[in-house]
């Protein structure tokens, strides 16, 4: 026999109200309440009711499936591990909404990096009609708020910790959950001791280094599910070569984890075409470039590299640095730079600028042009204007309203946007499908982020990307050393960005910087860069075999 929980308060309320006619309803009111309850009824066990409640959001097929699986098959405890950019937040929101509609979730805690708190609150409000609160310095009503968004750091503070651990949460969502891979950290232990009925872990990289990362995530959802850590490690180590064993773990985890890949979702229907354009310096420019090499003799190689790279971008960028060098130099040495500053003034317009204008004029399409240097940004704006092409500037440093405004101008008025850095929470420009990387950053993944601005959901055209590099210069070198090699195995593994973040002794970008700073000669730079690339290649291959 199934337990029935009766409504014990009603009949008392009725008897009491019959004594107070002013508390009684009219017939119209009575009928309206009845109808309201019919509308609120959860009509069936299956499906996602939330979809009907959110007609203004265009969910993708894989997001709907993920939410259904998480609710109906995984029963509300799941790792949502889609690749970057496939909308894990939307999936989590959909699941949250579904549980709220079905009356299963009222008290909800969302833990996310501090920088994403406001974004979550905004999305929940706009896309899901869910009002969420977030604690400020003095104000934190953990008990009263139904839906709370905050960072783990905030939640585990001394004055909050005990209150939170005391609350029975219906649903806890943890964004960027891969940060919890280490079970010895305070954050992990805090999360582990939260009281929760349902739980969603969001991460694009469920396994960062080792299978034990995954073990720790699973242990938050289902303690014991993969055995205990020592046994797990032993088993995995001993039998690392044993495919069956690994497959066993994977099939176990498959009951808890949803992972959509870009290539399975039809998102790649718009393709990207990358064209590497090698341009030649004019004689004057080449002369200047050679002249800079004289600086190598009595400056750290880093100085020369910077200047050379800048010259490959624009005279202006190089000029700014030279000027800075002069300013910083002791007075008696400052004159050294005059000769270079003088020379750079003589260099004609940049070969890249000409090529860029050609491309833009030829196609007549909207272009986004990325450069690393502010000076180049100014120069290009001016140059385009001289050629009768409209453009707007963009920088990740602009405040939100300025960013939105520039985006709007680009969408409706200007043909070109010249941007300095994509920035983490940059902008989405699906209406544009041509990009020029005017100069190349050291880290190939930065390029990936730039491309992500236009090659994402809602891009209907094939995306064309032009990478500019100048022949026989440091830039050409970067292109050959890093870009072409990494491009080769990039497609094999989607998580390359995370491999590049996880290199022992600092991220890829960090590594490159220290190689350049510490090397004595170009030859040494080359050897070290080569080693680095081989290491990445090795990690990728290893990963490919184990997955």
């Amino acid at each position, binding site marked *: 026999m199934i337990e029935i929980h*009766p409504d014990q308060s009603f009949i008392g309320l009725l008897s009491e109200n019959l004594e107070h006619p002013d508390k009684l309803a009219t*017939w119209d009111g009575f009928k*309206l309440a009845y109808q309201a309850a019919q509308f609120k009824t959860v009509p069936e066990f299956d499906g996602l009711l939330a979809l009907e409640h959110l*007609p203004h959001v265009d969910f993708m097929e894989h997001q709907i499936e993920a939410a259904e699986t998480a609710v109906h098959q995984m029963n509300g405890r799941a790792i949502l591990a889609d690749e970057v950019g496939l909308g894990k937040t939307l999936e989590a929101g959909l699941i949250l909404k579904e549980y709220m509609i079905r009356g299963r979730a009222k008290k909800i805690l969302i833990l996310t990096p501090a920088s994403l708190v406001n974004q979550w609150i905004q999305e929940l409000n706009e896309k899901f009609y869910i009002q969420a609160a977030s604690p400020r310095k003095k104000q934190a009503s953990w008990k009263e708020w139904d839906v709370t968004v905050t960072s783990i750091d905030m939640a585990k503070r001394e004055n909050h910790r005990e209150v939170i651990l005391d609350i029975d949460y219906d649903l806890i969502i943890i964004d960027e959950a891969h940060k919890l891979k280490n079970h010895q950290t305070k954050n992990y232990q805090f999360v582990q001791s939260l009281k929760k009925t349902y739980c969603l872990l969001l991460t694009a990289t469920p396994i960062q280094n080792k299978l034990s990362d995954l073990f720790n995530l699973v242990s938050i959802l289902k303690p014991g599910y993969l055995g205990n850590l020592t046994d797990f490690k032993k088993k995995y180590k001993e039998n690392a070569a044993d495919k069956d064993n690994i497959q066993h773990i994977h099939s176990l985890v498959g009951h808890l984890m949803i992972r959509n890949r870009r290539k399975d979702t039809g998102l790649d229907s718009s393709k990207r075409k990358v064209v590497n354009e090698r341009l030649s310096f004019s004689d004057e420019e080449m002369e200047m470039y050679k002249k800079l090499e004289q600086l190598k003799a009595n400056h750290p190689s880093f100085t020369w590299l910077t200047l050379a790279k800048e010259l490959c971008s624009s005279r202006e960028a190089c000029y700014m640095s030279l000027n800075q060098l002069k300013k910083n130099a002791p007075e008696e040495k400052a004159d050294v730079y005059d000769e270079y500053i003088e020379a750079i003034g003589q260099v004609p317009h940049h070969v890249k600028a000409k090529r860029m204008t050609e491309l833009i004029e030829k196609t007549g399409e909207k272009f986004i042009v990325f450069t690393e240097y502010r000076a180049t940004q100014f120069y290009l704006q001016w140059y385009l204007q001289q050629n009768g092409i409209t453009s707007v500037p963009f920088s990740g440093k602009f405040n939100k309203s300025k960013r939105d405004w520039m985006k709007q101008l680009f969408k409706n008025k200007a043909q070109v946007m010249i941007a300095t850095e994509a920035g983490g929470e940059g902008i989405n420009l699906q209406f544009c499908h041509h990009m020029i990387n005017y100069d190349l950053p050291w880290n190939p993944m930065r390029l990936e982020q730039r491309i992500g601005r236009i090659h994402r959901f809602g891009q209907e055209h094939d995306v064309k990307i032009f990478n500019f590099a100048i022949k026989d210069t440091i830039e050409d070198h970067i292109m050959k050393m890093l870009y072409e090699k990494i491009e080769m195995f990039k497609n094999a593994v989607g998580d390359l960005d995370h491999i590049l973040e996880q290199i022992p002794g600092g991220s890829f970008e960090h590594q490159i910087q220290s190689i350049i700073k510490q090397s004595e000669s170009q030859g040494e730079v080359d050897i070290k860069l080569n080693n680095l690339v081989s290491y990445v290649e090795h990690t990728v291959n290893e990963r490919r075999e184990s997955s």
Partner: protein
Amino acid sequence: MNAPNPYKTFVKQFFLSHGCSIVNDAPSHFTVQLTNEMDEEIMNRPFYWHYMKKMNREGVPMKLTFSDTDQKQAGGIYLHAGTPKLHRLYNTAISKARTARLYEVVHQTTGQNRAMSPWLVVNGLLHFRGKYTRDEPVSIGINLIHGTMMLGMMDKIINMNFETTVSDYTFPMRPVISLSHAYKRMERHIETYVGSLDHQWAKDSLHHLEKETHLLESFYESEDIGLDSFTKEREQLDNRYKPYIEMEVINGGLFYISQETSKTWMQNEGAGTVRE
């Protein structure tokens, strides 16, 4: 326009029945002038009203425009299943009409005074909870004179007219059966009804609960987890899977209905009634 928007009628009736007026009524949208009370109730601006009252000033209630299409240019609140304002109205509607005492409107001009039978009418939702969730509306009426029970009660009376005062030449009869007694019978009926259903959902839930519990116990036995997390997890498994049904009363009241009316129900649908 395809199917008519089902929420539109509800919203209009809601506001009209609470003394608000519809100031503009076009095919795809309409505008409501709120009263002060309704503005305070649903517009989330307590500070405004607090201030106005403090200053002894007349507040200006807002107008709301609703639309049954998603067109941005038309403006207004788009009415669909998830519209937040709509859910606000649902809750207001329910909280304002939990209980009632209503008399059937009878047009009797001459002759004998007519007797009106008291009925307890209760509308509720059965919440099926477990691995799955679903609700089922119930509406039951019990005649408080002779104990006849009527299912689907609201469907039977929804098109009738009721007033808060008794019609001329009619008189309400004194209940023989007490309210709480009648209500107990309703609960018993629900138990029987629930017992008669196919509970595959509950079996599934229990099965799942057992499986997970078993798994958890084996983890504990093999010392993969400690007692603390075992106890906590065990509790949470119950939360997630243990099947139960929660009876929630939406609203209910004492209804006085003429015997002529109730007689037609019994003749038409003998099957719908349950006699003791």
